[in-house]
């Protein structure tokens, strides 16, 4: 058997294989779950695969991989396409519900500068709670109808909340609770499991092939991919949330997407956010 520390030191391709192997053996053998070691291995894999990319630059997705795209994006950022959503989100966030309470009442620190702590594991519920879920729960607790999880109002709200947290390092905690470890492990399994007609896993594109072209697009690295959410995608001509990102990925590989905020999506968001700990929030982002 290969020992983990040895695997980290070896070539990047080998580490990818090792990661797959570990994911597979874990499920069967139920080894000790060690998120801290997983995060370290995950980050080191990307740092070694792309030694010329600055660590805090991975959160800029495809722009960290391609100089030409990066220049176009930097120009675009002078007048970003998410600006309308950001302004709308700021206004919505400040507007009280019918009962006079506001979003700020539902969140620590009035909801400002807290994006980097989401998703978190709720020990009462025994499940992962994402920012989108918390926002809709806040609405429902105050007698308002929930928003769609994929775009429009929800994306505007999360855009504003991400904006107030820009530059803060992702800071996801995994409490000492077997259910939290299980959620992390489920998320990891979801990330590495192949599915759909094309037989792709999330990792097939975003771990094996970041920086490569997939038709006209450049694939983003999985490391820090959620730090930029929500995003304005030119392809959507609009904003999309983390839920929308997952659903699109699933349907593009011809897998059947899950419902937004399904347990698996919550868990994979938990996994991906945790392994990006320490990298700055860069959302809201703009992507082609």
């Amino acid at each position: 058997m290969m020992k983990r520390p040895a695997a980290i030191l070896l070539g990047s391709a080998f580490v990818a294989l090792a990661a797959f192997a570990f994911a597979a053996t874990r499920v069967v053998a139920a080894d000790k779950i060690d998120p801290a070691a997983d995060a370290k291995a995950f980050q080191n894999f990307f740092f070694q695969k792309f030694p010329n990319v600055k660590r805090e630059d991975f959160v800029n997705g495809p722009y960290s991989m391609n100089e030409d795209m990066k220049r176009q994006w930097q120009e675009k950022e002078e007048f970003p396409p998410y600006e309308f959503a950001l302004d709308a989100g700021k206004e919505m966030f400040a507007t009280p519900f019918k009962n006079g309470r506001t979003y700020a009442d539902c969140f620590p620190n009035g909801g400002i500068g807290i994006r980097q702590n989401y998703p978190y594991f709720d020990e009462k519920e025994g499940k992962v709670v994402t920012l989108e879920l918390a926002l809709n729960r806040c609405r429902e607790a105050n007698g308002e109808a929930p928003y769609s999880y994929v775009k429009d109002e929800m994306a505007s709200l999360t855009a504003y909340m991400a904006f107030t947290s820009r530059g803060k390092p992702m800071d996801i905690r995994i409490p000492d609770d077997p259910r939290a470890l299980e959620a992390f492990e489920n998320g990891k399994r979801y990330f590495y499991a192949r599915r759909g007609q094309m037989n792709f896993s999330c990792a097939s594109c975003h771990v094996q092939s970041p920086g490569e072209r997939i038709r006209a697009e450049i694939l983003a690295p999985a490391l820090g991919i959620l730090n930029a959410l929500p995003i304005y995608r030119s392809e959507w001509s609009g904003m999309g949330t983390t839920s929308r990102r997952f659903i699109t990925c699933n349907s593009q590989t011809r897998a059947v997407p899950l419902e937004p905020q399904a347990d698996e999506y919550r868990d994979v968001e938990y996994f991906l956010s945790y392994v990006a700990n320490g990298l700055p929030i860069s959302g809201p982002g703009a992507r082609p």
Partner: protein
Amino acid sequence: MASSIRVRATANGDITEVQALIQHPMDSGFVKDAKGELIPAHFIQELKFEYNGKDVFVADWGPAVSKDPYVKFSFKGANKGDDLKISWTDNKGASDTTIAKIS
């Protein structure tokens, strides 16, 4: 309601560079909604930038321009601190106007 027009105009010597982003659905009239019904055409027909009462940029647009359109151009002869007036009119007769300071 906030303005549907965002403008940034910067004078650099003789040249003023203008960037504008306009919030508009720009429906082409060929797209169907979730119920399968056609969304009627709804697009900006005229976009105008005026400086000192004189048009510096006029666009006659049709349904093929994308949603939330972005425009960038430059012109000569404006000074820092001057006003630039931007207005659009769409095919339903709606319009919006804003005045930006050249910086």
